[in-house]
């Protein structure tokens, strides 16, 4: 799951809800994984959120949270350490 999560974040910044759907696992699992990955310095939350808009989001077709009625998810992206580690894993 860790590798799949890092790979999902390789191309773009994603929210927890989207990651959960992409990886087909529960939101709790994604949150726990992100929590530890952040502790390890592999990922970090972006200073923006889903409520910033869906215009540039490549997975908007997968997203059901477009009404803004859901909690604002932090959007996560890889850090340099995360990118280096992903290359090593690949």
């Amino acid at each position, binding site marked *: *799951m860790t590798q799949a999560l890092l790979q999902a974040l390789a191309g773009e910044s994603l929210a927890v809800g989207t990651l959960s759907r992409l990886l087909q*696992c529960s939101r709790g699992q994604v*949150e*726990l994984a992100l929590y530890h990955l952040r*502790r*390890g310095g592999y990922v970090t939350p972006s200073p923006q959120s889903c*409520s910033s808009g869906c215009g540039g989001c490549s997975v908007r077709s997968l997203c059901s949270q477009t009404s803004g*009625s859901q909690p604002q998810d932090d959007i996560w992206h890889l850090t340099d350490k995360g990118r280096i580690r992903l290359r*090593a894993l690949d």
Partner: protein
Amino acid sequence: MRVATVGNPNVGKSSLINALAGSDLQVGNWPGTTVDRLAVRFELDGTSIDWVDLPGTYTLAGATSEERITRHELLNHPPDVVVNVLDAGNLERNLGLTLELAELGLPMVVVLNLIDEARSHGIVVDAAKLSERLGVDVVETVASRGQGAEQVKKALLQARKPTTQTTYPPFLAEAIDKSGITPTWKAVTMLSEEVEGIVVTPALEQLRRDIGQVQDPFLAVMEARLSSVQSLAHSSQVQEEVGKTLTQKIDSWVLHPILGFPLFLLGMLGVFRFTYLFSDPWINYLDVIKGVLSGWIASWHLTPWLQSFLVSGVLDGAGTVAAFSPVLFLLYLAMAFLEASGLLARTAFLFDRGMKALALPGRSLIPLLLGFGCNVPAIYSTRILPQASDRIRVALAIPFMACSARLTVFVLFGAVFFGKQAPYVVLALYLLGLLLGLVTAWLTLSFVPKESDRTGVMELPPYRFPSWQAVLRQAWLRTRAFLKNAAGLILGSVIVIWFLHQVPGGPVENSLYARVSQALTVPLRPLGIEDWRLTGALIPGFIAKEVVIGTLGVSFLGEEPVAVVGAAEGLKQLGVGFGQALKDTALAVPQWFGVPSAELPTDETSSDLRAALAKACSAPAAAAYLVFLLLYTPCVATVAAIAQEFGRRWAVGLVIWEMAVAWVAGWLTYVILR
């Protein structure tokens, strides 16, 4: 027997202890209610239990202050039994910590709390299966209602060591064995990451380098634990189909990006009006009680000095303390309801974006909102923020929040100078305090070093209709604690002020108190404040804002002749006053739900002070006075809390900063409104 509760934040650890021990640990529906190690002692079937409630955490290896406290306690003072509390509705996130705890090798009981909420979301957990997999007793509970408490007690006395272990990849398993370190959790942690308080030996450092050649040990450990969590969760829970939950329906309104903010403001206005409308009849009734007691004292025919001391010193002081009980109790009641229902946590989400502009996490708003009740516990609650820089910046903003002690002054001046506009003036003062607090937090960003980034996991608890018993108890405990801390201080201050009024004797204008106050009036003249009695009330206001009205009463009304009241007449007045208070409370109900109306119920006693105040200054000067009072300095208890948490330098700096801001804001208010 020593027992420790460990679990993720906001899973009901404190509620469980309260259900088992009948204790009064603070309970809230937001992450981080317990920010320190709390202990309770009670008897269980003849066994003395020392129960430690540890702060919520997702891992034992984390770096936040809560995580450090939990790790330190478990490693350095291992309990006889660990009670791991899980949110039954979110097993995947909770079981990660369970597996870490299992590696400590301590006897353990797993509590599946919030089982009712899990079922309402269609989540069915097979406790027997989970128990079989973990090798420890698993008990289902709804701690807030005491359900399952008896089973937890039984399980405690027969707690077993877990048999489950995370399956690590061979290269890591070998290294763990080779290290010879116990418990397993410590060995795994030492091999995979740097953790404060755990020293890595050179031999282990070499071992770590060796396994680093094979794979990143941190990721390997994480992957192994996540896989084990997944396996445990899949084997012990089933997700059934359910429709849109009530929480989701309510959230579609409360968290709406546009409607959410006006709804929040409306909610806060509702809280203020609730406090204001329902406390007023009982404050008036306390005045009736004071009048009757004064009359009874007068009937004893004591010497004038002693009568003055008892009536204007002791009784006025006690009256000032008592007058806060209704306001505080109702405000704490409203706040306890907001906390326990989950509404307060929503504000963190709602304002997360806005707070990001100030480089603060959304949950900073929780200490700020608590500051509206009392600044002192709000300062301590900044511990819920993981970053030290965020904690300092939020703590510096908190004293700008208008605490409930300031509310009574706002209410009195509002009624005297602003009539029907009073509630809006009070609301404006609250918003001004909030705004200036946030500006202070923003300004401090330039000289408070910011750590790398902020916490990632934001929790949104489901709505829970709070138990009225718990909410009432919470409000009562907070009111009692506040009064207990402040009563002596307030009573003493009022007596000292009374004494200063008596020295050297004669008219109050010649007293020592008047001379000091006159000197302090000079810098406040640009704010339109010319009356030394108004300035004088600010002096004891530094000790406690609660004293301001009592001091104004003594300064303006001085020694009033007290009418003698007979025993029967006094009892009759008390009975009639109580009936009137009940009637006014009932009348406040439709008013609370209706169109805002600011007409204040008046009473004979305080109308004298109101009339005297009306002559003391103009409405613009009164507004400037309120702004100055809102901002000029936190009370000594708040300053002490800041000094304790962050050091004296910050406390002194804050007082100086607030004085400057108060003067400028007060002056601007006067100039604009004049």
